[in-house]
């Protein structure tokens, strides 16, 4: 039994940690967020050089051959700096789906460009009505000469505005809510008929409405067999959710540490507010919340290497629900205990909280995942 990261994992974790500490202070981040594109291409190139963009990809494509543990290690550290460059979107989500694809020629074409930093990607799945049900897809892909024509609209596509490539869910058969019939297409953001309206999100990242009007894609752009896209998504989702949860964990730990330190220096009624027992106990609760979240993540990481898929899924749903519950607790207590200063945009606290809130609503909130958990755990 062992809960340590390997030497290799520790190296990459430390490298991200150093970057956040030395080069990504809050002022730097604020300037990046305020910039035209909202991300730093320079840093992105640096991520490529340091090998971070290669983590989840097999060595045959030039990747690092990392596991979900490696992803978690990187994401946790990125969380501590609330790094806005679209690592989750491009490497974990888009990259994760690409890595799981069985379309070899597509992988050979795309993955190296993710690794070298030239391709940013995004997963365009949600629609105006879909909320968290991934298989609620109204966008259609109609077969035509050697390919498909895609039409529909995708909303709040994470980092859609900076992506060169999109993985789009579109229905090739079945009814709106059917699992079967959802297909995954790689679509070029510049393709004819694709329109991307990008806008800012509260976490400093961006999202986009992506409109597809008779966008023609070749059959070779399918990530896996037509109509079986949900299988691929389900396969990758645990890894995605663990990556996002690791980022959340990094944020929660930072919020807790910052809050504890603040109470030691902040004086009220002629004493540091850390001396108030009520605040002490509440900070103990947020500390325990963080430890429990970490344990649930580690449970998932351990189970990811095992064969019991049912157990892993239970854990992953529980993990996302835990991140929702305890993330909210940690975030709200951080603001409350900071008091007035915690309400200001100038302080970093609010920005950590906002990223935590966005993670909460990415691919299902707490109630959504707890209900999925209940289904797995209690339904005959």
């Amino acid at each position: 039994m062992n809960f340590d990261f390997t030497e290799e994992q520790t190296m990459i974790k430390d490298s991200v940690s150093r970057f956040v500490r030395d080069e990504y202070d809050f002022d730097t981040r604020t300037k990046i967020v305020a910039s035209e594109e909202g991300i730093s291409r320079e840093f992105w190139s640096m991520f490529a050089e340091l090998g971070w963009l290669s983590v989840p990809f097999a060595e045959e494509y030039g990747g690092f051959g990392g596991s979900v543990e490696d992803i978690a290690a990187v994401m946790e550290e990125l969380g501590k700096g609330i790094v806005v460059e679209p690592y989750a979107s491009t490497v974990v989500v888009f990259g994760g789906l690409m890595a799981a694809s069985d379309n070899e020629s597509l992988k050979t074409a795309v993955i190296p460009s993710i690794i070298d930093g030239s391709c940013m990607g995004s997963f365009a799945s949600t629609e105006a009505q879909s909320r968290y049900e991934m298989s609620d897809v109204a966008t259609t892909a109609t077969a035509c000469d050697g390919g498909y024509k895609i039409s529909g609209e995708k909303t709040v596509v994470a980092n859609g505005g900076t992506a060169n490539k999109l993985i789009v869910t579109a229905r090739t058969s079945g009814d709106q809510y059917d699992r079967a019939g959802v297909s995954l297409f790689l679509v070029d953001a510049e393709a004819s008929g694709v329109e991307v309206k990008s806008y800012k999100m509260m976490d400093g990242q961006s999202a986009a409405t992506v409109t597809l009007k008779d966008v023609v894609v070749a059959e070779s752009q399918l990530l896996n067999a037509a109509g079986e896209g949900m299988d691929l998504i389900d396969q990758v989702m645990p890894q995605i959710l663990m990556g996002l949860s690791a980022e959340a964990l990094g944020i929660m730990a930072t919020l807790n540490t910052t809050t504890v330190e603040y109470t030691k220096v902040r004086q009220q009624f002629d004493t540091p507010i850390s001396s108030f027992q009520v605040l002490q106990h509440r900070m103990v609760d947020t500390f325990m919340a963080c430890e429990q979240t970490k344990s649930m993540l580690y449970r998932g990481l351990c189970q990811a290497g095992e064969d019991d898929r049912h157990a892993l899924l239970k854990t992953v749903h529980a993990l996302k629900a835990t991140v929702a519950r305890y993330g909210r607790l940690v975030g709200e207590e951080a603001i409350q205990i900071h008091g007035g200063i915690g309400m200001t945009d100038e302080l970093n606290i609010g920005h950590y909280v906002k990223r935590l809130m966005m993670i909460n609503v990415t691919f299902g909130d707490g109630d959504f995942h707890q209900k999925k958990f209940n289904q797995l755990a209690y339904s005959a």
Partner: protein
Amino acid sequence: MDINFSAEDLAFRDEVRDFFAREYDSTIADQLSGAQGTDYKGAIVAWQKKLHAKGWVAPGWPTEYGGTDWTATQKFIYETERGLAGIPDVVPFGLKMVAPVIYTFGNEEQKARFLPRILESEDWWCQGYSEPGAGSDLAALNTTADYAGDNYIVNGRKIWTTFAQYADWIFCLVRTSKGMRKQQGISFLLIDMKTPGITVKPIVTIDGKHSLNEVLFEDCVVPTENLIGEQDKGWTYAKALLAHERTGMAEVADSTRLLEALKQRASVEVNGGKAMIEDPIFQMRLSDIEMELMALEYTELRVFASMAAGGMPGSESSLLKIKGTEISQAIHELQLQLASYYGGALPDDLNAEQLRHDFAFEARGKYMYGRAATIYGGSNEVQRNVIAKAVLGL
């Protein structure tokens, strides 16, 4: 035991409803919905002038200065109708905060000089109490006013000053001498915002908006005639005002309206094609809040009934503040949950139609700014201390 209103009260209620329905049109509502729009101040002033024309802008004032002679019940009805109609309260700093201090502790000259202009919304006031580092410990203030002949020379910093950017006047607590206890030696001073040496620095809050400010005083010369009451007795005047501030923080009518809107929205929002309001878990989240609110409505009525019977709002106001803010935060939270990922979008680059979601911006803004409700006006921690001491005798 009953909650029936008299025929007179019911007639009054109809009059209020009718007035609001007629005078508060959607244009005003739109202008007032964001605390940041360029015409926000103008819209507020215009609305308050309408209220003043009707004689309703200052129900709490004694009639001799321009207040109404409403009974406690009428005041309650007015506030309830206002909340249910979604009409924001008047800006409190002049009408509800400084005016009571002026007509209670000010001299005749001050009353004549300031009260009419407040009533007519000619002067916009802001509040200079909090200082960096003070927080809920209000008496820990360092802004000094040194006596120099006919003037005080004021130096220091005030913070969390709402709408200082619009203000003509600021009422301040300043330190005029070093007392044994920090509550001693504080004076209540009215300062013209055009006084040289005043700088207003905006504070942007986590909802991305600007309503708060820092106000800096550098060697500001303030005539001694602007002192309220006696020098060094300001804390007493301010304390009287604080109890005033806390009453009405339950905001039951507002929360009721927000919750109704939330239910409406939950019947439109879908997951897997099914309306969220039909989801048993979401229903529990809703009723957890609605039941608390139903109880709070009667807690408020009970407090009000005892006030109508001549009692004074004491530490009950702390209970109303704690529960009221917890409930409104819970509503904001659930509304943001309902908005899902749309709730993250900022309106800088697009409108609701383009976003494909009609309450996401509001949900985010209310949640984020709403975090302040448990912090300001005496944090909920301080309110719990108050109840522990005053009610439970701990």
